Each structure stands twice: as C-alpha cells, then as structure tokens.
C-alpha cells in the first residue's frame, strides 16, 4: 500500500481556472497578430496585456523605466485604456476574430513542471487584473512581452527626468503622456537613433546624443537622418554631472573621455536624459520559471529578436558613467543603496555598521570566490525593493564585473522571481482554495515528533504528547 504524506503538495495544486488553446502575453503588434492568426485557425485564444498599468506602478517604474516623466494623465484609468486601444487598431480585429482580449491584465508567473516541481496538474500561467488573480492553462503559450530597459546609473540619475528608451517610447506612443520637451539621449546604436527620430517626429527637441565609443554604433542611414535633423552625436563623451531642480533634471554636464579636462566640459540644458544604451528581451516569466522556449512556449516579437548590447560595450558605458559618480550615488533607488554601500557590501542604513564592517568590501568578499548578485542583494538590499530590481539589476552586474576584473558576460544577472510583476496580497490570494489544500495545510512539515519537548522524548508521556500537539507547530 502506498502511504501518502497528507502534508505534501501532491494533488493539492488545482487545475487552472480556465484553459485556452493559445495564450498570448503582450498585445503589441507581434502579440496581437499572433492572437488573430491563432483565432482565425479556430483556436480558443486569450490575449492579455498589462497596459494600462496602474498609475502607482508606473510611478515605481513597472514595467519600464519611466523616470517620473509621465503626465498626470497616467492617473486616469479610463483615458489610459482609451489610449491603449487608440494606439493599437489591430485590437479591434482581434475582438472581431473572437480573441478573448483582456487589457490591464499582467502575467505574473509561469509554472511548468521540472526536476524540483512535479506537483502541477499541467503548465499554467498566473495572470491578474485589478480585481483578482487567475490561473490559466494553455496548449501553447506565446510570449510577446517586448523588451525591458537596461539601466545604468550616474550622478543624479535617480531624479525625475532620467528614463529608459522603452519607457520613453511607451509614454510617448502608447499613452501620449510624456512630459519631456528637451532631451539628451545616451547611446548611438539603433535604439538611440530610433529614439531620437521618434522624439523629433513628435516635436520633442533632441539636444544631443552621447556615445562613449569613438564611432556611432547604429546603422549609418539612421545616423545620417539624425545628423540631418541637426542633432549632434557627441562621440567619446560621458556624463560627468547632472543639474536638477524641484522637477528633476534641468541639465547635464558632458565630458570627453578618457581623462576629462574641466575646460572641455559641455553644459547642456535639458529636462530629460534617455538611457538608450540598450534593451534586453523581457523574458522574466521564463527566467523565474527556470525554463526555456519550447514546443509549447514561444517567444515572438521584440522578446525574441531584441538582443542585449555587446557586454563589453555595456561595461564600457558603466565604467565611463561610474568614473564620475561620487560614492554617494544611488544604485538601488527603492532601498537607497549607494555605490559606496555596494562596493563596501554594507548593511542598510537602519542597521548599525559595526567597526568590523569597515574592513569588509566587495573586494574582500570576492576573495572567497565569485560572488553572485543575489548574495550582494542579501547583504546590501540592492534589488530587493518594490521595483523588483528593474532599475539596478544590470548596474549591480556591471559593478561586480568591474570589481572582479572579469567580462560582464561571466557575471549572472540577479534572479527574477515570481510574481514578476508586483501583485497585491489580496489580489494574488486564492480565495477559492481547494479543499485538499485547506485540509492538508500545516505550518511546517506536519511531523508531530519534531515538536516533542526534549525532556519528554523516550518517556511514557511522549505518545500522548505527540498525539495531542500534532504537527501544527513552529513557534
């Protein structure tokens, strides 16, 4: 007879609340087209998109680095919803084709069975809107999740007006809620050049592109278009300082590399600095699930085609920006971790920093072997905040590479963990919990003998004690 551990997870995770032949995450052009095509083939299709994202999350730079340059329009859900429709006419076609389209719905967790998780009744996706979370099963999952901003810090980057290229484009084209009028763009690759052309087409002044390398990184044709618009591309330059006021960025100081002379510094007035050094495919769902694209899980659109910039290039940028960043430059905005804190692996400010900590540093930690960004996160709290590490993950990796003197490509990126979008407790909660889950729940393992007071072990009272207390313990 097979004995069951009633407190084990087997059989307790319910089947998904709903199931579709095809689930598409991301209603951009690629995702919407895929959903329509699947529906036209007769499949049942769910298409979700997290936009419009609640205003509070936009303020926390979820999912893009919006850098506080959104207008008050983002606080009006009805207008935001209208904008999402207006910016993607294909959504009407998707509705007409019978696609179940749900906007304002994020995908926060992908679950597939693997070597350390075998209790799932099948692969499923956790989604949530403003009301509730739902588990959705799928025959095929299509991730059209786009790209995420790669964020590198510099002096003053943590004030309103410093944003990512993805955040810039989203506010401008999807939401029509961008407050920037006069921008400086960091980078000269295709992303930076396209950002410049997009801004110009919408009447936003592009004052300069800044590039640490000696040559323009993007296609010559795009660069020529930017140049033709009279926008200078400052090669071999970096950000030395930013000027700010009550509304954030008011100007930037650029200096030539490698060793800046004060007299060569350029002062440029601007209200926004757009980080367009690079993007990364937004594969958090896969990363958190510890899985890869497969027969049933596909990446399409930017999520499939965007490539991270060459690690050496990214590291060159991080180094150039870092050389002018004072020790008190914030790296992790959520937890207010500075460069000095990180390099010193110092505990957060609410803890005392005892004398012995003075001798500890990232360098001393690295003497014990390669450090993992998750270890740095545990010690300094960098990446532990409400933005889920979106703004500091890549900076921490660059700093680790720099300190270790190793290529960035060899340093892991801090882990993504579900929920990959912030979801409130009351929304994430399973309020219709399965009876098996409720019945088999125990605080810890439900091993009654674990909690027997030592003095009682081996005495006549032991059996009574074990029977009386049961396993529901853990104090």
């Amino acid at each position, binding site marked *: 007879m097979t004995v069951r551990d009633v407190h084990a997870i087997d059989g307790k995770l319910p089947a998904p609340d709903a199931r579709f032949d095809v689930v598409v995450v991301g209603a951009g052009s690629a995702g919407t087209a895929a959903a329509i095509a699947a529906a036209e083939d007769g499949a049942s299709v769910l298409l979700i998109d997290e936009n419009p994202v609640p205003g509070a999350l936009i303020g926390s730079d979820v999912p893009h680095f919006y850098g506080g340059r959104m207008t008050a329009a983002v606080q009006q859900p009805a207008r935001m919803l209208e904008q999402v429709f207006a910016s993607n006419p294909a959504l009407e076609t998707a509705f007409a084709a019978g696609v179940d389209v749900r906007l304002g719905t994020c995908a926060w967790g992908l679950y597939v069975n693997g070597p350390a998780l075998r209790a799932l009744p099948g692969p499923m996706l956790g989604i949530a809107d403003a009301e509730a979370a739902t588990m959705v099963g799928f025959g095929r999952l299509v991730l059209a999740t786009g790209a995420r901003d790669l964020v590198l810090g510099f002096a003053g980057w943590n004030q309103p007006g410093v944003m990512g290229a993805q955040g810039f484009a989203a506010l401008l084209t999807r939401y029509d809620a961008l407050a920037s009028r006069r921008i400086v763009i960091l980078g000269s690759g295709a992303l930076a050049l396209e950002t410049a052309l997009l801004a110009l087409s919408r009447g936003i002044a592009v004052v300069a592109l800044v590039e640490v390398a000696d040559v323009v990184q993007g296609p010559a044709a795009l660069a020529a278009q930017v140049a033709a618009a009279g926008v200078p591309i400052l090669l071999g330059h970096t950000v030395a300082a930013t000027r700010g006021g009550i509304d954030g960025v008011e100007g930037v100081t650029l200096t030539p590399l490698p060793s800046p002379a004060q007299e060569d510094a350029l002062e440029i007035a601007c209200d926004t600095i757009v980080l367009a050094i690079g993007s990364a495919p937004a594969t958090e769902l896969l990363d958190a699930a510890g899985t890869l694209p497969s027969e049933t899980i596909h990446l399409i659109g930017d999520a499939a085609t965007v490539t991270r910039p060459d690690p050496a290039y990214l590291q060159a940028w991080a180094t150039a920006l870092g050389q002018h960043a004072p020790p008190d430059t914030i790296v992790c905005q959520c937890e207010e971790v500075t460069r000095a804190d990180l390099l010193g692996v110092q505990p957060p400010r609410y*803890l005392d920093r005892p004398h012995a900590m003075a001798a500890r540093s990232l360098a001393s930690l690295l003497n014990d072997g390669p450090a993992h960004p998750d270890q740095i996160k545990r010690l300094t709290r960098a990446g532990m905040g409400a933005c889920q590490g979106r703004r500091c993950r890549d900076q921490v990796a660059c700093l680790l590479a720099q300190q270790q*003197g190793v290529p960035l490509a060899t340093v892991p990126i801090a882990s993504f963990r579900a*929920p990959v979008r912030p979801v409130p407790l009351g929304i994430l909660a399973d309020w219709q919990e399965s009876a098996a889950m409720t019945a088999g729940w125990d605080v810890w393992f439900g091993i009654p003998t674990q909690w027997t007071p030592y003095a009682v072990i081996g005495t006549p009272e032991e059996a009574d004690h074990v029977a009386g207390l049961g396993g529901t313990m853990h104090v």
Partner: protein
Amino acid sequence: MSRGSAALCMSEADLPKGAAVVVIGAGVTGLSAAWWLARDGFDVVVLDKGIVGWEASGRNGGGASHYQSPLFAEEQRLWPQMDDLLGYPTEYQRERIIIQRDPDLLDHYRAVGRMCSAMGYRVDDLDSQQAQDMVPLTDQSCLGGIHLRFGGHANPQRTVQAYAWALQDLGGRILQHCPALSIETAGGKVVAVDTPRGRIACDALVVAAGSQSGMLLAPLGVDFPLASARAEMIVTEPAPLMRIGGVDGNGLYGRQTLRGNLAFGGGPHEWIDMDEAGPKARPTSPLIRNLARRVAEMFPKAAHLNVIRSWAGVIENTPDGRPILDRLDHPANVTVATMSGVGFGLSPASGHAVRDLVIDGACSFADITKLGLARFKNLEPDWREQRGWAA
C-alpha cells in the same frame, strides 16, 4: 588577468594542505561550529559546494524560539549577544506573537503557550483587543493569540554572512565553490577530504552538509537517513514597522523584517530527489497564492501591499524530524550535524554543541544523547516510502 581577478579565486597554491578541523557545509550549522572551534584557537577550513548560506540556511523564516530543543536555553542565552560576539549585524529581535482567527487553532496555541510557561518560558495570552493593539496590521477578525516573552527572530542571510566573516576574522578559512568529493580514511579515522582543487588533510571532520550529508557519509558505511523537500515563502513590499515584528499564525511562519517587508511561508512541501550537486532548481509554485491569502487574512490592513518576491528552499528531514548531533564511533573523529529543517534559530547553540563533540566528545551544556544517530540503527530501508516521503 587584472588585479581584481588575480584575487578572485584562491589559486592552487593557496589551497590549505590541511587543517585541524574540516567542516563540510557552509550553512548556519557548519559555520557556527567552525566559528566556535576557531574561537578556541583551532585551525578550521569550511568547504561548500556553492556560496555561504545558499541553501536552507539563507532561505527560512528566521525564527529563534525552539522550546522543544535541548539546545534552547543556550540559544536563548546567546542570541541577544550574537551581534557583539560575531561583530556583524544579525538583525536579531526579541519575542514572538502568534495570532489566530480560527478558534481551534487559537485553543491549540494557547495549549502550546501553557506548555512553554510550564517549562519556565513565559507566555501571555492575548485576547482579540490585546492582539489588535500589539499587531496593528490585524483587525477584529483576529480572535486572539499568545505573546512569547522569549525567543525572537533574525535575518537568516545576514546572520550566515556574519558567521562567515566572524570565522574569517579569527583566521578560519572558507572555500566556496569547493565541494567535498570524497572522504579519505586510514586506520579507522578520517585523514583528509578530497576536493576538485586538491586534498585537504584533517585531524577531525564535521559533516554539516544538509541534504548532501547522507551521500557524503554513505561511503564510510554510515547510514545517515535524510529526505529532502522544497518549501516556499513570499515577501511583500514594506509595511509600517510593528513593535514586535516576529508575528505569525494563521498557518504561517515568518516575520516582518526590520525594513518592514512581510516574509511568510507555510503549507505543503514537495519531496524531491537530491544529488551531490544540490537541488537542480528551487522554483516556487502557485502555492504562493495560498500563502498570499493567509497573509492577507492574518494582516487585513496589509492586504493592499504588493507581493514582490517568492522563493523556495530545500530542507532535509530526519525520519522523526529531530536533529542528529553526534560524534561517530567509526570513524571516531567525525561529528555529524543536521537540524532537520529547524536549524537557523538554534545555530548559536548547535555550533557550540558541535564544537564540544569535536573537541571533548560530549556536549558540555546540555544532554543531547537522544539526538544521536543510534536511534535510527533499526530503521527500515523503505522508511521514506512508509512515511510518504519518497520523491
């Protein structure tokens, strides 16, 4: 190689040829043992397959209130001193509150409270209003609770690193990413541990390698029965700090961190296969929704807070869920230690006990003979299946 990378990994020449004591496993139990040994001047080397505290030692609820353990009095004595003794912060905070919204569970914990009081550890009953006064995130749905005037909680990850640094400050060495491959014996004693980077001779060995302990000990003819399971926790964005952060109940264990995050786990575990390299993955499951529900029920005034992370850890359990702390008869210079899934809070004392076993052959401050390995000598080979603990 640049200056930085030259210092990155210990070169072969830096690998210690030997040590008085080699400890396998840089979790809290192994690190605390090594620290206690180093405090007495012993030359200690700690080996780990990965990074300090990377398994269950750095992934747990941080509780430190284990009335059931023979090590508890020593745990209680030491925790308030640990920041000073180690020289690094552990975030230790005193006392615990357990609240309930289910009348049966409240009765159950009231009985636990009476038992603890009878053992000499004071527990006060809280009625609903008292509980609401002490736990501002709950509401009138809380029927009451118990207030443990003992125990407490600390930050597992910070504490693990504090042990590691304190050990290094005393001259102890930690070799990360350096698994023990095999244990070499001669004349009935362990003489060395083999690693991918070379052989390290030793006079005594401590095996505190968590889930890997059984696999390391088997070739020595030592049956060290363990089963491994995965358990999950969730973390919210910070809530306003409660006066006592060590609040749990409603089927959960956990705490409010000093930053304000609510970090809670509980509920079903999953028995998993384990090999020498450690768990193949540490995923969480949709169970995080059941955890979220219980946190939202326990703290209705925090139900609007975002969950921002979840994580899983792998825990080893002995057949009776009680620790094994023992000095072996054969090989006679080997001390084995597993805390069976309840090791973090007891670590200040478990390290002391292991130090005593290694040096003196017996624990100096408590009787721990009932935690010996001998209790499993007649264990059936299919003990996991008999308990439903097979992966």
